[in-house]
């Protein structure tokens, strides 16, 4: 009890940089530029054109998350199955690209995918047809999967590592095939890692606007672009805040949904 004062800096920090800004955004979302309570800004958010933007952002982020899972899970399994000597090397190779600037990596993809970019030069020299996916949704999804894949692999990997291998041996002793053991034992036990991975990929993917601008060629506005525009170009802080609040609610709902599942599965990394 006597050491309680040690937590005060943390509380002040939280109040200054989390609670107050958040309260201000909520305040703006429900007021008019003159400061009276109004629902105009919130009503504008549910306008079909803005809902379309929301939907497209969620669709692209969702697709990327699924792809990350389909690629990331087997990769995590491979990591766990590798000998210790090589394993840390492999983990390092997944982590190292993340040390480089995110923007730089996305720019690199831009030059790789260009009409006269490296990939197409190689394809042409092999007499294969060129691919023109830069400035399409494919390029955006590719950029998201590339940038966020480590966030899927690592939580799954850490959960799989901690798993008791005796369980699988027991299953096999009792006559289960490897596939059955995987479906009935390994996969259910790895679910907390999967949920954590999904969250860590989906959240940044749904709010990104850099990837969509660079690799999507600014063809489609995503939520991030929309909010940025309201604050910087239009100067409509109320509508910008309303969009942010709507986004926040969506994220909170999905968080709540996830954490419910995680509790049932005896807790994961984050909750």
């Amino acid at each position, binding site marked *: 009890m006597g050491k309680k004062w040690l937590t005060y800096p943390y509380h002040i920090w939280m109040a200054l940089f989390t609670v107050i800004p958040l309260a*201000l955004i909520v305040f703006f979302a429900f007021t008019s530029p003159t400061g009276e309570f109004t629902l105009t800004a919130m009503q504008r958010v549910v306008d079909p054109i803005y809902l379309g933007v929301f939907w497209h952002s969620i669709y692209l982020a969702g697709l990327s998350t699924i792809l990350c899972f389909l690629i990331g899970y087997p990769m995590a399994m491979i990591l766990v199955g590798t000998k210790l000597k090589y394993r840390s090397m492999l983990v390092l190779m997944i982590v190292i690209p993340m040390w480089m600037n995110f923007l730089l990596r996305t720019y690199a993809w831009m030059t790789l995918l260009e009409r006269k970019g490296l990939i197409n030069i190689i394809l042409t020299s092999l007499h294969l047809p060129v691919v023109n996916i830069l400035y399409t949704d494919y390029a955006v999804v590719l950029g998201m999967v590339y940038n966020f894949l480590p966030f899927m692999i690592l939580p799954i990997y850490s959960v799989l590592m901690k798993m008791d291998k005796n369980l699988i041996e027991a299953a096999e002793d009792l006559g289960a095939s490897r596939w059955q053991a995987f479906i009935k034992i390994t996969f259910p036990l790895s679910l907390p890692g999967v949920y954590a991975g999904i969250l860590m990929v989906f959240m940044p993917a749904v709010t990104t606007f850099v990837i969509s601008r660079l690799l999507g060629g600014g063809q*489609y*506005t995503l939520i991030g672009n929309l909010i940025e525009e309201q604050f910087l170009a239009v100067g409509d802080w109320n509508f910008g805040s309303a969009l942010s609040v709507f986004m926040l609610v969506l994220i909170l709902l999905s968080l709540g949904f996830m954490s419910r599942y995680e509790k049932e599965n005896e807790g994961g990394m984050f909750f």
Partner: protein
Amino acid sequence: MNKIVKFLMISALCLVIGVMLVGCGGEKTVQRELKVYNWGDYIDPVVLEDFEKETGIHVVYDTFATNEDMYVKVKSGGSDYDVVIPSDYMIKRMINEGLLEKIDFSKVPNYKNVDAKFKNLPFDSQNEYSVPYMWGTVGIVYNKKMVTDPVDSWSILWNEKYKKQILMLDSPRDSIGITLKMLGYSLNTSDPEQLKQAKEKLIEQKPLVLAYVVDEVKDKMIAGEAAMAVVWSGDAMFIKDKNPDIEYAIPQEGTNLWFDSIVIPKGAKHKAEAEEFINYLARPEVSQKNAEYIGYATPLPKAQAQLAESIQTDLAAYPSDEILKNTEVFDDLAKNIAAYDRVWTEIKAAR
């Protein structure tokens, strides 16, 4: 009430930024000082050094990337700049909001060097607040090897032949503006019907557009990734310099004529030094140095006359008066900015 909240929010932001910048050294009050806020890479560094040597005024120099960034920082009041160089429409907005100080032109005798056609511009019609720094146009750069048709109309941006080879500016004002010009309207229109027509045109164009870009346009055009692009004239000069196949054209329907002008924010602490600096920048030989370094056009005829022959006669940099007759300067949209934003969102959301 709302003002207070806005103030709180901005000061919270400033606090964070301030804490990060605090390490950059304390105040030096002994020396005469001047705080300048300009676009990135938008002055010849030699000019700053020479000014410091000549006057003994210590210049603190910061840069911004967009008018909007600059606006938020100056409006919040935490920055105390003495000289800022924003664009036309933003100057109007700042005048309207009382954010600028009137310049004492008796302290800026070199103002007489500014071309008469660049005085009393619509954004500062009595010319009380601003001195032009650089100016330019918006036009089309095209690759002569890829474009066979004559480029004399904005409508070439709607030509099916160049499907997925057209780059547009990812900027609502410019892209909607040139479309309005093509349709024969003012690029400052507030008529919803005219805006609607422009919107439909741009949605119709969308399948032909390779991408909406801003700075990437330079790399893309130099590398020959696209046949044509809408650009600002200064970028056009840069691209032409790097790739001889590129040409710049200003369509006959007219275009946007833009200015970056020097202003003094309200409450500047070093107004006298600021006016001295403005006067210095309006010297022909100084403006010439800047024009050569930046690649945009100087508003001083005497400076222009000193430039290399090839630049002076380049219509991209210094279009003829005949072309200029057809141009329009951006006005502050004020309340109407929401209508433009809505149109732009609808274009971007269309599929």
